């Protein structure tokens, strides 16, 4: 059946920032399917110029209100590597725990506030407070736990306070760590509620072969630093990040696009899972199995399931990490250093995928050049290409305009784009 279809979504809701979807079909033929970021650019790479290295993580954390800890740690890692500063082991453990808190908070926010309403058929989470109280409570409990972990480890959940160059400005309080351990024990039941619910959902069937890029360290599920790998077999060192991203500009988007071996690539929970599922906690592996997630999954909608599996990993790994911290004396938390000239990249796995900060400093340790490549920037081209394939598949399946529109929105949301981040 030949038909016309015109979908024009301006400022997609339930995503962070401003982006538009446009799909046009004329006489049964796809004319255009486009993902355009229209967010106001902010110029952090200019803002950071001339700033003293110690202050930089306090600035770059402000790139994002959801993943501020990842940004702070990416800058810290870049600057520490540039100036050859090695933080004490206790500080490294606390930083990883802070990342766990942020990832849990971000994933719970996405799964319950942003994605869940699509599956439940409501405009947002607020109506679900009444219709699905137990499920929403589980989501809020997980999100709250994530925020608590970040607050105990970084001093504040949004825009961290005590993550500094050389280590930590303040060690977490032992009493608070012990309390976290108790809360984690209690909240495992919330995780079960979430897993049971998501296992009952019909995840849209859509696959497009994709190159998935993430960190990889060969021994643990990666969060801070490591080798850059792709499911197409590319391996690079952290400082060679530009060879993974190859940023380019398009005229319809204020966020840049990237590519590696193919026309586009993907970063995020599914990419981490596809490259590192062997290193997930056994309980997280079990959850992935139960939820039907197997590597290498080329269905972007499975990002939601990968996020949930990561939440399981995080709760169990956080428990182990806190146990380890409670066995340490937490006195050595900061390496003092003299600022100097240097240049290096810091890569971390932010909740939405691999995040690169590259920093160059002068002899006084002031930033002379900075480059930040954000996960959403690395996903934009892939979202764009997925949209075209999804539109074509939906037309073949004879879906209505309304169905295509909903699927397109869900597809973009499945990447959990962080748009204000991507136009940093």
């Amino acid at each position, binding site marked *: 059946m030949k038909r016309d279809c015109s979908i024009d979504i301006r400022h997609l809701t339930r995503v962070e920032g401003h982006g538009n979807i446009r799909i046009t079909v004329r006489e049964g033929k796809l004319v255009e399917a486009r993902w355009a970021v229209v967010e106001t650019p902010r110029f952090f790479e200019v803002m950071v110029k001339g700033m003293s290295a110690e202050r930089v993580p306090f600035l770059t954390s402000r790139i994002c209100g959801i993943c501020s800890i990842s940004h702070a740690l990416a800058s810290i890692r870049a600057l520490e590597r540039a100036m050859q500063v090695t933080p004490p082991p206790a500080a490294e453990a606390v930083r990883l725990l802070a990342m766990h808190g942020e990832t849990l908070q971000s994933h719970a926010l996405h799964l319950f506030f942003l994605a869940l309403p699509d599956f439940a058929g409501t405009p947002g989470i607020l109506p679900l407070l009444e219709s699905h109280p137990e499920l929403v409570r589980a989501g809020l409990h997980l999100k709250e736990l994530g925020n608590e972990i970040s607050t105990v480890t970084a001093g504040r959940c949004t825009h961290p306070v005590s993550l500094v160059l050389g280590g930590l400005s303040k060690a977490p309080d032992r009493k608070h760590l012990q309390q976290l351990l108790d809360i984690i024990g209690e909240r495992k039941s919330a995780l079960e509620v979430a897993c049971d619910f998501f296992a009952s959902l019909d995840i849209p069937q859509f696959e497009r072969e994709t190159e998935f890029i993430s960190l990889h360290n060969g021994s643990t599920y990666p969060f801070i630093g490591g080798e850059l790998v792709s499911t197409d077999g590319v391996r690079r060192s952290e400082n060679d990040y530009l060879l993974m991203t190859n940023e380019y*500009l398009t005229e319809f988007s204020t966020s840049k696009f990237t590519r590696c071996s193919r026309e586009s690539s993907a970063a995020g929970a599914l990419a981490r899972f596809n490259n590192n599922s062997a290193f997930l906690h056994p309980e997280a592996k079990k959850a992935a199995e139960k939820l039907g997630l197997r590597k290498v999954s080329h269905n972007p909608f499975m990002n939601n399931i990968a996020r949930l599996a990561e939440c399981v990993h995080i709760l169990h790994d956080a428990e182990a990490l806190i146990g380890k911290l409670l066995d340490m004396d937490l006195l050595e938390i900061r390496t003092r250093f003299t600022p100097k000239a240097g240049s290096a990249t810091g890569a971390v796995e932010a909740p939405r995928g691999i995040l690169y900060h590259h920093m160059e400093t002068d002899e006084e340790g002031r930033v002379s050049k900075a480059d930040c490549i954000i996960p959403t920037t690395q996903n934009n081209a892939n979202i764009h290409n997925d949209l075209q394939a999804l539109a074509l598949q939906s037309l073949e399946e004879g879906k209505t305009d309304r169905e295509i529109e909903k699927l397109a929105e869900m597809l973009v949301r499945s990447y959990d784009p962080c748009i204000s981040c991507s136009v940093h």
Partner: protein
Amino acid sequence: MNQQGMHFEKLRIASFDFTCCEGCQLQLANRESSLAAFFGLLDVRAFREISSEKHDDYDIAFVEGSISRSDEIERLQAIRKQAKVLVAFGTCACFGGVNSLKNRYPIEACIAEVYDGQQVESLPVRKISDIVKVDLSIPGCPVAKEEVERIVVSLATGSLAALPKYPVCVECKERLNTCMFDLGEICLGPITRAGCDAVCTTGKTPCLGCRGPADDINFPAFLELVRERGLSLRDLKEKLGFYHAFEAYPYQ
């Protein structure tokens, strides 16, 4: 609705964001244990970040972010027309925030550095009150949810919504912290408005003044303190300029 024996109408609110990280809006979804009670006071008419519902009949607009593009000016003016109470929400909205650091360079140079000369529209960063009248300011990077809750309750009950007049130093002392100056660091706690519960200095990092100047500060005495201690004036300048919140107290 009835809450603790008091009757009042739910506040018809909307939340909007401009040039920012959306971290302040996100705080509205934090403090999960009081979330149901908090949203129980509100009739959310538009809040794109968490809901697809969009209505233009709000009374109170929470506006996050600074202004740096012409379409933002138009959107902001439309919000001003509708809102009975326009709240500048967070440091970017109140003072311009970290985004203002961009203003140290000509716009063309910023665009050339980041976009390789491609045509991208961007204006020098301005705070909300540079464009429209602001009825209420809630500073903070990010805003403190406890304070937001307190102010929302004040709005719902028709009582006065006010920020502390005293500086962060007071809250910091209450928390029995070692003074950052005694640790050899310039800290803006003596001149910055309280209300954050001294969260940064409690984490042993100096206050960078995200909440802007407290009432009746003695700026010359503060400068004297920095000089007396022999601390770096370049560091002072970097800290005062960080959030663009001390515009009224220029320091060269």
